[in-house]
């Protein structure tokens, strides 16, 4: 079975700094991988590389066996990204923001789809308000609506729980459960072990640009994993 | 005519002087690197 995403000896350096030093990762259909790792481990760089935002220094990324290159525009249709930024225009309304992205992706029946999504994330009553006036939690919900607008079979989530209030967390949890249909593939980064473990089908730890741990959820318990995680965070973290 | 000639000579001298300074800097850097390499060898 060909993996949906295959990361092959991926390296990325910014000047002298090496953010990724040879990452290998195979993600299969329906998997929910949660990547853990201390700050600066390269989690964001890895997600950005997979979402074609960053051009790798060395190595390859394959989507269903096809290599990402300049001509792979249609591959971007298969990816949804929730990053640190909202990727929303502050001077546009919630509806206008989604409409713009829907058109760029060529979503069929965009208006109907957007209204559905706005109901789903509980923002329908604010659909004609300018995004500038939204709270952090509302923004994050709209961000997720934007990411799944085109029904991407692959969803990349970069610390989606950061800065959320309890209500927003609940909505995000429900959303993720709804989206996990066994066909969709997820890669999420997190440093909240509980939350990450809850959703994951597979757990991995990224440390200074390398994957140092990668196991299926059945093979390990929360406590064991927590121990493993702290081992990596402590061991190689520079001592100040 | 003479002032011009002096001006020319000054321009030449400045450029050449700069080249000499560059050369000294190269030698100094090369020496430093040599010393560091030796220090690393001793350490290991």
């Amino acid at each position, binding site marked *: 079975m060909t993996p949906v995403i295959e990361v092959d000896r991926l390296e990325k*350096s*910014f*000047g*002298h700094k090496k953010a990724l030093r040879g990452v290998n990762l195979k993600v299969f259909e329906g998997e929910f991988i949660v990547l853990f790792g201390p700050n600066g481990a390269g989690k964001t760089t890895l997600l950005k590389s997979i979402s074609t935002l960053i051009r790798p220094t060395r190595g390859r990324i394959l989507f269903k066996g096809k290599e990402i290159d300049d001509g792979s525009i249609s591959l971007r249709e298969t990816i949804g990204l929730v990053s640190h930024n909202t990727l929303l225009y502050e001077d546009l309304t919630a509806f206008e923001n989604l409409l713009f992205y829907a058109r760029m992706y060529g979503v069929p029946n965009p208006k109907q789809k957007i209204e559905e999504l706005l109901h789903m994330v509980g923002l329908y009553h604010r659909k004609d308000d300018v995004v500038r006036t939204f709270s952090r939690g509302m923004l994050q919900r709209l961000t997720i609506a934007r990411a799944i607008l085109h029904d991407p079979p692959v969803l990349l989530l970069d610390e989606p729980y950061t800065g959320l209030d309890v209500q927003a967390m609940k909505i995000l949890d429900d959303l993720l459960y709804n989206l996990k249909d066994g066909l969709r593939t997820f890669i999420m980064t997190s440093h909240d072990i509980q939350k990450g473990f809850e959703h994951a089908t597979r757990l991995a730890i990224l440390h200074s640009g390398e994957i140092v741990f990668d196991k299926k959820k059945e093979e390990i318990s929360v406590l064991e994993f927590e121990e493993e995680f702290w081992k990596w965070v402590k061991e190689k973290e520079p001592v100040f | *005519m003479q002032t*011009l*000639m002096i001006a*020319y*000579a000054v*321009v*030449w001298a400045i*450029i*050449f002087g*700069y*080249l000499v300074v*560059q*050369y000294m*800097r*190269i030698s100094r*850097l*090369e020496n*430093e*690197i040599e010393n*560091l*390499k030796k*220090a*690393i060898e001793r*350490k290991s």
Partner: protein
Amino acid sequence: MNKKALDIILYGLLLIGMFVSLYLIFQYAPPAINPTNNQTWYEQKIFYVHVSSAWTGFLAFFVVAVASIIFLRNESRIADLVAQTSAEIGIVFTTLTLISGPLWAKSFWGRYWDWSEPRLVTALILWFLYIGYLILRSSVGEDFRRARFAAVFGIIAFLDVPIVFLSVRWYRASHPPLLVFEPGGLDPSMKVAFFFTLFIFTVFYVVLLRNALRIKLLQDELNRLKEVI
């Protein structure tokens, strides 16, 4: 050892070449006659250094553009360093052009600057463009992006140069200045002096670039070694 030998040859060539070019300019080549008043015109000798430095500056900026293209193709650090140092050197020589040009113009036109002289104005615009290039370099934090932005600007800037030249020349056609100097036929001995000076300036450029490049690479190496320790 090979490098050392090349150093000695280049430095020796320059030292001797300097004296030879001084001799050629001031002794060998005859002084020119000013066509406006038919008097001996010593200041014409500025011409040798003026045109040579203008040529070298232009060469340097050409190298910036070529190195920029190479950088965008293979992202090599050396190409980026060549572009940067070549821009720095180019600015030095263009500055020299901009100082010597008006001095020469004063002796010929009776004024330091004429906006309808395309070569001079183009040199000035070149100077602005590449000062901007260096400011751009100094205001981007990340090494990698800096190199890319600089390369893109380096290419655009160089493409602009011939159009600037053309526009100033056409501007002159519609706003004729009092008198325009076109360097017509040079005396053969003047030509010898001129081409020799041109050659020496080009060697200057090559040695400056080579040295600056070596310094930067050695510093890289030094930093790397310091990190190891």
